[in-house]
C-alpha cells in the first residue's frame, strides 16, 4: 500500500510541478483582462507556456501592440515584483500579480 501511495504521490508531483510561476520571463495567451482601480494598471491572467497572473503598469516598457486589452491576446515579456491590483475598494478586492517590466503583445 505504501508503495502505491508513493507512486501516486510521485505522479501527482510530476503533474503539479509545471504550475509553478517564474518571475522571468513569461509568455502566454490572456484568458482574463481586468482594469485595476489604481494607477491605470491592467491585470491579465495568462495561460501556457509560461502563464500566471500579471499586471501591466503605466511604467512598463511596452512594445507592439500595446498593453493587454482583451482576452485571447498573446503577451510576451519580462516580469518582476509583486503588484497588488485593486479591483474594488468597497468591499476591498485585490488581485495580486507580478508586475510586467517589458512586454509585447499580439493584436
Amino acid at each position, binding site marked *: 500500500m505504501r508503495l502505491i501511495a508513493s507512486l501516486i504521490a510521485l505522479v501527482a508531483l510530476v503533474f503539479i510541478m509545471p504550475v509553478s510561476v517564474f518571475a522571468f520571463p513569461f509568455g502566454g495567451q490572456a484568458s*482574463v483582462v481586468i482594469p485595476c482601480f489604481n494607477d491605470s494598471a491592467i491585470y491579465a491572467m495568462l495561460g501556457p507556456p509560461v502563464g500566471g497572473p500579471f499586471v501591466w503598469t503605466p511604467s512598463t516598457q511596452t512594445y507592439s501592440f500595446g498593453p493587454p486589452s482583451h482576452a485571447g491576446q498573446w503577451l510576451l515579456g519580462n516580469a518582476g515584483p*509583486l503588484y497588488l491590483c485593486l479591483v474594488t475598494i468597497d468591499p476591498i478586492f485585490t488581485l*495580486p500579480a507580478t508586475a510586467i*517590466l517589458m512586454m509585447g503583445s499580439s493584436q
Partner: protein
Amino acid sequence: MEWIRLHPYSSALAVAAALVVTGTLFIESHTSTVTPSSISAWGGGDVPVNDISLSPEPLGNNSNQTSLNTTDYGTRTLPYTSNDLGASSSGTIPDNYQYNAAEFQAFVTKLVHQSQTSSSGSNTTSGTATDSASPWDYIPSGLISTATPPKKTQTALQQALFQYGNDVGVFVQQYDTAHQNQVQIFKDAMASRNDSTKQSSLIRLGEDLKATGDEIAQLGKVPEVATSNNTALSKSYIDSGTKLILVAQALPGYDGDLVKAIENYDGTVNGFVKNYVALAGVFSNYGVTFGPSDPGNVFSFTPNAL
C-alpha cells in the same frame, strides 16, 4: 498478492511501466498530431540573441488594436470574457481552455518581424494545427535558437557594463528564484487578515526586497554611466520592501488604511519598473548584450528567453 509481497521491486517496476504505457496511450488518443513519415531533426533558425529591435509603443495609442473579445485568429470562441470577475478571482485556467502552440508561434513571429511564416503558424483558424507535417513544427522557431551569435569585440566600457549587468542580474535572479510564490503569499495573507503567521510571511518578503536593494547599493564596481541608475534601482527595492511591510501591518486594521497602504506600495512598484527599464536602457544604449545563460539577461527582452 503473494508474488507482489515477495518481489516488491519487480512489482514497483511493473506498476511504473503500466503508468507510462497508460499515459502514452492517453496522450496519443487525445492529440491530433500527424506522425512524420521520416525521421527529422529540428534546429532553430538563425535567430540571434536579442533579435528584437522594436520601438516602444506610445502609451494610449491603441488604434491598431481590435475591439474587446476579438482576435485575428478566426472565429474561435474565447473561454473567458474580460468581465468574468468571478472566474478570475480563482486564478485558474478553465477546463475548456486549450493551449495552442501554433497561435503562440504566430504571435512571436509577428513580434520579431520575421518575414517567413512556418506552416504551423498559418493554419490556426480552427484552433488546432492538424495540417503540420512534423511535430517539430510545434516548437516556435524564434523561441529556441541553436545558432551561436558571433562574438564582437567589446570596448572597455562595454566590458565593464557587461560585468556590472551580470553582477546586478545575480541579485535580481536570486530574489526572483527565492520568491516565485510571492503572489500566493499575498493571497494567503489577504484571505486570513488576522493570521500573524501569514502576515509574517509577507513581512519577510518585504525584508528580502530591502536586503536585495542593500546588496545592489553595495556593489563595488559600478560604471560611471550607470551609477545613478544603480542608486535608483537599489532605492526602489528598499522602498518597495518598506511599503510592502506597511501593507502587511495594515492587514488586520481598517479597509481604508489597507487601501491606502496598497496604493502607496503600488506607487513604489511603478517607480521600480521605471528605474528597472531605465537601467535596461543603459545596456541597450551602449550596445551591451547578454546571452541566455548570462545573469544580466534579466535586462533583455528576447523571444529566446522562454
